């Protein structure tokens, strides 16, 4: 037995690699493709195409309720998706009314950040006519139910405190029935599921939802039951950018995601080989 204990086998050394070395390796796999992008192609998934077609098919003059419901933590993933979809809405030039609110407390400032990236004036869209933000509304599902039932009773000013009556976009907007589509970008399960409970269930408003990739599995039953038209993850922003023909942060991440995911597959395979090799050579647990 002495040989295996004295000579630390290759597998023991592999398993004893310090955490910091693993992190350094991960950082390298992030930085290499960022420094010289390889430009891997990106496949378009059904969910992203179904999302795109839903917006494309909206009759002109339709009103869309958009919930900018993600936190700063989710911005790197959901920001690019929100920006790509705004490009699509504005580029259609069909008089669509993008009426935005936030169930997340960082929503309004993240919306400003997204608008700076979209630059709506490039499409001739202006605030108060084509797009507006009616502010953060606290209370989660209570806020959703309240604006669904009587929007003007709940909110009377936009996110900067200016009365809603001064904006032409708000004419005829009274409650959930005034909207032809609901979109939600969020990092919170309570919010993505809350809209199913407070808008789809009572009013049957068509609902598109984009969440963190880790939340997609918990939203799939709603999509299968037809309560949500399409659930996408922010990580698919690159695909939306391809469809909207405005490449930005989303597409740039494709190379990095490929490289880092290859590293993860390598870790899984290596870790299990080490585990079974040690097991068959009589090593410890």
């Amino acid at each position: 037995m002495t040989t295996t204990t004295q000579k630390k086998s290759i597998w023991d050394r592999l398993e004893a690699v310090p955490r910091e070395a693993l992190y350094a390796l991960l950082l390298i796999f992030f930085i290499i493709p960022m420094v010289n992008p390889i430009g891997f192609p990106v496949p378009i998934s059904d969910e992203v195409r179904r999302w795109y077609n839903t917006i494309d098919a909206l009759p002109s003059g339709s009103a869309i309720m958009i919930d900018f419901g993600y936190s700063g933590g989710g911005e790197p993933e959901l920001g690019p998706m929100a920006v790509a979809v705004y490009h699509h809405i504005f580029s259609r030039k069909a008089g669509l009314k993008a009426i935005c609110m936030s169930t997340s407390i960082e929503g309004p400032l993240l919306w400003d950040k997204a608008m700076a990236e979209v630059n709506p004036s490039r499409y001739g869209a202006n605030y108060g006519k084509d797009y507006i933000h009616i502010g953060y509304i606290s209370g989660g599902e209570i806020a959703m139910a309240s604006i669904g039932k009587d929007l003007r009773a709940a909110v009377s000013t936009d996110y900067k405190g200016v009365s809603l009556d001064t904006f032409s976009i708000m004419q005829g907007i009274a409650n959930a029935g005034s909207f032809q589509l609901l979109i939600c970008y969020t990092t919170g399960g309570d919010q993505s599921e809350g809209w199913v409970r407070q808008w789809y269930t009572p009013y049957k408003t068509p609902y598109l939802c984009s969440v963190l990739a880790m939340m997609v599995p918990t939203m799939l039953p709603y999509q299968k039951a037809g309560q949500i038209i399409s659930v996408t993850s922010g990580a698919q922003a690159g695909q939306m950018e391809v469809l909207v023909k405005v490449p930005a942060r989303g597409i740039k991440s494709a190379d990095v995601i490929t490289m880092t995911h290859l590293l993860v597959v390598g870790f899984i395979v290596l870790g299990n080989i080490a585990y079974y090799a040690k097991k068959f050579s009589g090593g410890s647990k």
Partner: protein
Amino acid sequence: MSVQLYPGRIFALGMLMSLTALIILYMELSKKTLPEFRKLAGLDALPEMMGRAAEMNRPVHFTTGLGELTGTVAPQLVAGLAVLGHVSELAARVGVKLVYTVYQAQVIPLATELMRQAYVKEGKADAFKPEEQIVYMSGEQFAYASAVQGFAERERPAANIMIGPFYAESMLFAETFFRIGAIQLAGTARGYQIPFFAVVCDYLLIAEEIYAAGAYLSKDPIQVGSIRGQDIGKIIALVLMLAGVITTAAGMTVIADLLKM
């Protein structure tokens, strides 16, 4: 004042009222006789885990994760504390040192009481040392996570039990205790964290199983009766689904029409 039923919401109203009646009924019935529970694989592993810790003469670590007693995740914390009471009994019985690391200071008095009662019940009241066994680490998520990591690397516990609401730090805990060779039982009802526990831990209580474990161990008629009522609701769901599939296969839409009423 006219009152009309909304079409398409009648079955839902009927279902909600019958579920309410069922759950209240079984909460009352359970005051007389507690229903039996099925085997919970995670709980049955506890005696073996405690025995192993006693053999190796190393402590056992317990955490109920993050979450306040008044927050939305309070039921998960309550379930974790019920398991803590049970584990304290086992620890007193086999004479192994149990350490409960605390995130939320508000829980300390409750946990102290639970553990003391367990040690008294096993006749080992003097073996219980609250100042060593109930350790407040921090009220910040990552400060708590790194403090528990430090504890694991110093004390090298033989077993680690994690029942309650867990967030992003779950992977850090699971990996740290795996690396020092601790045998692990974990359970949370927070869906996003279950995969991490499933991947790394030896025993797992999945989602609602922690409520069942908490109710089973606490023998509280309210919790047990509530679970019994929910079980009837699940049987209703099973019957409706199976009947629906069969009638759909036979080309009939009777079940679907009923549900859409």
